[in-house]
């Protein structure tokens, strides 16, 4: 029988631990597919965070390094500086990358660190059971904002990719999502570009991906996809926020 679909060899056979309806699995698969398609798997070193993505060390078929909470990008910096010939990517959630690790994210962009950061934004701390994060929407109920995020007391969601795109050393910044096949294809395209930017040595590349967390959002998977589209997407600047010009790529 002709094989019409096979699992990418960028992923191991370890089953994902993610909750039903969580889109982390899609994001991992896209990342692994691009690593294989761009022939990067053998040179790739991934850095895993603390949080829901923390177990991805076992999912990616390449070498993986687990970092302390908020420090994935610092660890990735150390790996890349030690092995400039390697392809280095970090994975982080919104708590990891936008709260405790904000300084690391911005500083890597400032340095134009030649790594790729994949930032998975589901507007909540998932692993610890659904607490408010810097990207939680105003009014969104979480276990630490039980009356809804209060704008006066805790501010408004941080648009991290938009912030990163303001930094000169950031060569490529995209804000994408995975709620439909069309968006999934666009996300894969963004990852491909980000990886190419790193390979070309053009600077820091940052891909923010809006993702669902039906469990802590208290929704069905279908409701979660709809909420991502109708509530989250309007709140964050979407699309390619920064990309090198053709001339810059040539140089």
């Amino acid at each position, binding site marked *: 029988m002709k094989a019409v679909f096979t699992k990418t060899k960028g992923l191991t056979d370890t089953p994902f631990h993610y909750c039903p309806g969580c889109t982390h699995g899609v994001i991992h698969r896209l990342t692994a597919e691009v690593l294989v398609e761009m022939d990067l798997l*053998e040179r*790739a070193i991934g850095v895993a965070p603390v949080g829901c993505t923390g177990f991805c060390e076992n999912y990616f078929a390449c070498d993986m390094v*687990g970092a302390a909470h908020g420090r994935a990008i610092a660890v990735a910096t*150390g790996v890349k500086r030690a092995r400039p010939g390697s392809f280095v990517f970090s994975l982080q959630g919104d708590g990891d990358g936008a709260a405790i690790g904000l300084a690391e994210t911005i500083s890597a962009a400032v340095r134009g660190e030649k790594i790729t950061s994949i930032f998975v934004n589901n507007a909540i701390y998932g692993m610890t059971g659904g607490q408010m994060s810097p990207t939680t929407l105003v009014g969104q109920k979480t276990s630490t904002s039980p009356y809804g995020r209060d704008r006066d007391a805790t501010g408004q969601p941080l648009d991290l990719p938009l912030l990163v795109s303001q930094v000169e050393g950031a060569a490529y910044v995209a804000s994408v999502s995975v709620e439909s096949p069309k968006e999934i294809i666009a996300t894969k395209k963004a990852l491909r570009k980000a990886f190419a930017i790193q390979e070309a040595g053009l600077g820091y590349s940052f891909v923010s991906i809006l993702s669902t967390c039906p469990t802590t959002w208290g929704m069905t998977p279908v409701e979660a996809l709809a909420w991502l589209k109708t509530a989250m997407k309007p709140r964050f600047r979407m699309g390619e926020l920064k990309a090198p010009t053709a001339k810059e790529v040539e140089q």
Partner: protein
Amino acid sequence: MKALMKGNEAIAEAALQAGCRLFFGYPITPSTEIPEYMARKMKTVGGSYLQAESEVAAINMAYGAAAAGERVMTATSSPGFSLMQEGISYIFAAELPVVIVDVMRHGPGLGGLGATQADYFQLTKGGGHGDYHPLVLAPSTVTEMVELTYEAFDLADYYRNPVILALEGISGQMMEPVEFPLYEAKKLPPKTWAATGIGHKPKVNIGSYTLSNEVGEAHNLHWEKKIEQIRASEQRFDEYLMEDAEYAFVAFGISGRIAESAVDLLRAEGIRLGLFRPISLWPFPVAGLDKRRNQIKGWLSVELSAGQMVEDVRLAVKGSAPVQFFGRQGGMTPEPEEVARVFKSLFADGGKRG
């Protein structure tokens, strides 16, 4: 190579001689000559120097570089060392070789730049979370800083463990003539555990989480075994006039040098006194102290703190003789005469009784 150099610069040069090609740091007095030296020299040897955004980032960058299998160092001073504790705990758990320099400044709080040894507890008891120990080496001269820096990299690689060089600000700033012997690389096993890509070896995961208590305990037992091995094999100390001594100072680093002068003063008065100088603060040289247990009638721990190492001295001599403490704090150092006076006041007729 022979030079007149500050302690901090000698450590940086020794690291380069030992093959360290990656340095991550954040400026903090009185350790800043180390990143400054690295910033100047790392380029000339084809390495990578990076000024991190914080000590928190610096230690985690060092974690990453070590995970990738390269020799790496960071340097800081007490408040920055406090910030690095979480990272050091992770480095221990991931079994990564990282060399860390703590050029101590006095605290608590912002404190000041004077000589101090008040980081002793944080250095030796596992300053971060969990059961762990870095190896801690305390040089007392610039020459010894070079020797111990060479050794620190070998020990870190051999045990896959963080190794800390601990010195006082005054020692880091002090200039002394120093020679750099040729660094001879020890034969160490290849770093097959490192994350270098799966091109020529199976996939590796470097990390430290466990999802089951059973696995967690197995990891802890593995580390405990390593800790015991280091405790048994790596105790280092130096002795001065201990062979016929009836009383002894215990002092490390700059206090060791001051106490040595005090030994001379008291010897001139006919008091049979010696100096036991721990070089490894962890593992604490209990075997060396134990050997003198039946010989010494009184110990005086001389420290630049409110009394930290004295607790380890008391544990080591097991009540065989009184253990007294003398310390100056807040950046002050005692004169040898003051140490001698204190000794005589604490041990009334100071050994003359024989």
